[in-house]
């Protein structure tokens, strides 16, 4: 006589084992809707100004002072990146900036606090100037944002994007990312050229 409890234990173990077998097969799954670089986001950094140049804002910054130099969104020294990609998709933009600009080896006396701010514009503008007028500033402290390549201004949400397939070219849109920020307080630091590298990465969002 096999008890009901014993049957349950046997089946329970079998179900548990089969769950692991199924899970082991996940490594060979097919991913739908995941775009790769070759499927078309391009980033362009314009040669003018080419970098976030605090010297253009204030040519000489004196050491030994508590002065700060600020480049705001609407200043001409703001640097921008042009993002071209599939108009029907969302992108995630990650901005990674150092908290200090440094000279030489950095460290005490060779670093100045740096705060990087950024704003985005996804209104489909053709040039950076008009895009800047409609740019949305990202609150301080945020380092990543997700936004549609092309903002929907009216109407109901569009249907899901068409998957990439042979002969299909997705409609393209241009979005802009503006970089600016604050340098300082300068403090007692060595003379020299202080630099920092801001890394901006963009990918299509996956959900």
């Amino acid at each position: 006589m096999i008890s009901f409890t014993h049957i349950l234990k046997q089946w329970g173990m079998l179900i548990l084992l089969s769950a692991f077998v199924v899970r082991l097969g996940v490594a060979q799954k097919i991913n739908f809707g995941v775009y790769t670089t070759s499927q078309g986001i391009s980033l362009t950094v314009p040669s003018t100004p080419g970098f976030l140049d605090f010297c253009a804002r204030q040519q000489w910054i004196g050491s030994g002072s508590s002065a700060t130099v600020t480049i705001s969104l609407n200043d001409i020294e703001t640097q921008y990146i042009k993002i071209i990609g599939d108009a029907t998709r969302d992108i995630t933009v990650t901005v990674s900036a150092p908290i200090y600009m440094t000279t030489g080896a950095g460290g005490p006396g060779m670093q100045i606090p740096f705060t990087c701010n950024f704003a985005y514009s996804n209104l489909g503008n053709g040039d950076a100037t008009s895009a800047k007028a409609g740019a949305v500033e990202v609150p301080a402290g945020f380092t990543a944002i997700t936004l549609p390549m092309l903002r929907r201004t009216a109407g109901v949400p569009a249907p899901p994007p068409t998957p990439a397939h042979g002969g299909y070219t997705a409609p393209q849109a241009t979005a802009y990312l503006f970089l600016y920020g604050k340098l300082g307080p300068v403090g007692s630091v060595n003379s020299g050229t202080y630099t920092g590298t801001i890394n901006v990465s963009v990918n299509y969002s996956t959900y």
Partner: protein
Amino acid sequence: MMGHLKYLFAISLLIGYIADAQNTGQVVAKITASANVVGNVDLIVMKDLEFEVSNLSSTDLIVDPQRDAHSGQIKIAGYPNSLVRITNEKQTILQHENGQSQLYFTYNVSGSTDNVQVKSILLTQNNEVKLSDGGVYYLWVGGQVSGLENIIPGNYTMELKIDVEYIL
């Protein structure tokens, strides 16, 4: 046995994660932020201004800053190619060592990015000049002492005040 299965299960999840990371397209741009910081500008006295008897004329004592070897010389050291403002007094008082007499001294200052006196140009009381590629600028200080007819022999001293500041 279950412990072993748990181990395999953990590996399978890890494989899945790496696959996702490899399939997520990502493009990266690098932006450089840059700023020039300057320290205090330095003034280095290279040579004092000297008046000697050989310079003495009947009533005036003149030292030409552009040519006279008795001119004082000051080196300005700062950040390469930076703009600085140089201001100096036009006239000061030469005081006798015993305080018995004083003379009026009128400055003439010339300057150049090269350490060649004859290439220097006369400066006014308020000037904007650019430091050299090496971050230096040279000043030569001369001038004129008037009213020597009734001078009391002795040593006379004065202070020359020159202000140099960056134009930010």
